[in-house]
């Protein structure tokens, strides 16, 4: 649908994105993850046609992105910006009515969307009295006004509690949204809700694929937390090393053994030899967030 070929974006001397090759397929949910400043928002701006590549090509349905091409695409896009300060002196209904008029959407659809995002009861209150979560829901409502096929959302779950994150994805699923491109730095919470993950760091794509593919390809080690009994002695640490742990460290009353994925089951089976010395066991599977953000 939208394809970036060797796209680089510079702002003066600063390189925001470097040699990005990425295609957003129709019907997929793509998550862009990375730290602040990793290039996520710039990439979204490129996908929306708000900015142009410094070098490289951007194709819409196989054609070079033109003004007419963007206008055609935008008729089907709902955009949820990260930093938006809607008009405090207007009510939620008035704000959606205004954006609705710009899309040719009437009052009925506005009322419907207000109900969908759970703001029906607060629709006639001024925005100044809205909480952060309510503002975020209004932002989503604005994006859904035109009943879009494509939603592009910049940090849509920022500031939402886990329930709010859940509700956000439910709302997207409830509409006729087919394609979603969203950015977030909350990879652990969102990675299993999208079809593909694109991890950005310093303007470059570090990884691209489904959560399962990335976990499999990277084969990160697991951490086995072994809590010794009172009678346990130093032989337990030695046993853990002999069972194949690449490192064993003491942490909060437990021995933490780092074990390669391939050896995980054999390691756990071998622990039965030390059963008398083990009070409790906890296997900590790695998550993608750790892989990309904590170990950089």
């Amino acid at each position, binding site marked *: 649908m939208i394809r970036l070929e060797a796209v680089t974006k510079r702002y003066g001397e600063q390189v925001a994105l470097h040699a990005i090759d990425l295609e957003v397929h129709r019907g997929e949910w793509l998550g862009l993850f990375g730290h602040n400043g990793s290039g996520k928002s710039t990439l979204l*701006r490129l996908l*929306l*046609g*708000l*900015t*142009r590549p410094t070098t490289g090509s951007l194709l819409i349905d196989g054609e070079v992105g033109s003004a007419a091409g963007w*206008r055609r695409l*935008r*008729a089907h*896009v709902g*955009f949820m*910006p*990260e*930093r*938006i*300060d*809607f*008009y405090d*002196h*207007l009510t939620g209904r008035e704000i959606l009515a*205004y*954006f609705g*008029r*710009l*899309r*040719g959407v009437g009052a009925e659809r506005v009322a419907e969307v207000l109900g969908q995002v759970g703001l029906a009861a607060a629709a006639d209150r001024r925005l100044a009295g809205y909480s952060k979560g309510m503002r975020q829901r209004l932002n989503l409502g*604005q994006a859904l006004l035109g009943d879009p096929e494509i939603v592009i959302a910049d940090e849509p779950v920022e500031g939402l509690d886990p329930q709010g994150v859940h509700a956000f994805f439910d709302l997207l699923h409830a509409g006729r949204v087919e394609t979603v491109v969203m950015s977030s730095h909350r990879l652990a919470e969102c990675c299993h809700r999208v079809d593909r993950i694109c991890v950005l760091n310093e303007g470059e794509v570090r990884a691209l694929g489904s959560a399962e593919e990335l976990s499999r390809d990277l084969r990160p080690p697991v951490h086995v937390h072994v809590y010794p009994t009172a009678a346990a002695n130093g032989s337990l640490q030695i046993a853990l090393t002999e069972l194949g742990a690449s490192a064993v460290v003491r942490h909060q009353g437990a021995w933490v053994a780092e074990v390669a994925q391939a050896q995980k089951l054999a390691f756990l089976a071998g622990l039965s030899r030390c059963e008398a010395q083990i009070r409790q066991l906890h296997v900590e599977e790695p998550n993608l967030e750790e892989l990309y953000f904590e170990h950089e």
Partner: protein
Amino acid sequence: MNTSEVVVAIARKEVTDRLRNRWVWTVSALLFLCTVVIALFGAAPVGVVGGKGAGAVMASLMNLVAYLVPLIALILGCGAIIDEKQRGTLDLILVYPLSPRAYFAGTFLGFALALALAVVVGLVLSGLFLVLWVGVPAIEYLILTLLALALGAAFLALSFLVSLLSRERGRAIASSVFLWIFAVFVFDLILVGILVASGGKLPATLFGALLLANPSDCFRLLCFQWLPSAAAPLGLAAVAPAGLPAWLLLAILTLWVAVPAAASYALFQYRVDRDALV
């Protein structure tokens, strides 16, 4: 949705905003108050106090409009695009299936209507008082109000240009105040200085052309042509060369609206295309 509907929707919101935040009523009240004070005390320099001396009152009103309306227009318009950009709504609107031209036209129209509403309400309310009590000719007052609208539109267009060139609201306000001081005070002083330095030998054509380089002076010159009761000339316009026809002055004042507005739009479109608005 067609372009005209989009333009109307945006303009309507801009007007509603300024009604809701009481900007329109504040400006109207300010104009009403200043006008009434001028009606009561405007003729004091010629020894008349208390609503007498329609000619002197009209001359004072002309100067009030020449000073106040440009300032109001500049302060109103200088944050027009920047405010939307900084609050993030501009990016959102640009992603909507509408053209930057429609957005710009709607915004300018909305600001112009809000300014016009404020000026008309303020001047018409006080006009009733002036026409009925002071004896100001109704038709001349109407012409003054219409010329005030044209002057306001010219400075509003300039304020959009200032806004787009400044990139930040604080700088835009500072630049607008500077522009106002230059247009209503400094420009005339410079012209008088040139006139004096030339020993009165400055060609009338050149002097006339220099006067037209300032919308405030275009406004004053038109007032002197169309408002006979403001006979006692005040300011530089008193020494304006004869022979500048009203149609030319009106055309130039119209250009003072059209050219900065077109330049603002061109700059806006250029910056939108290059993602370089702020």
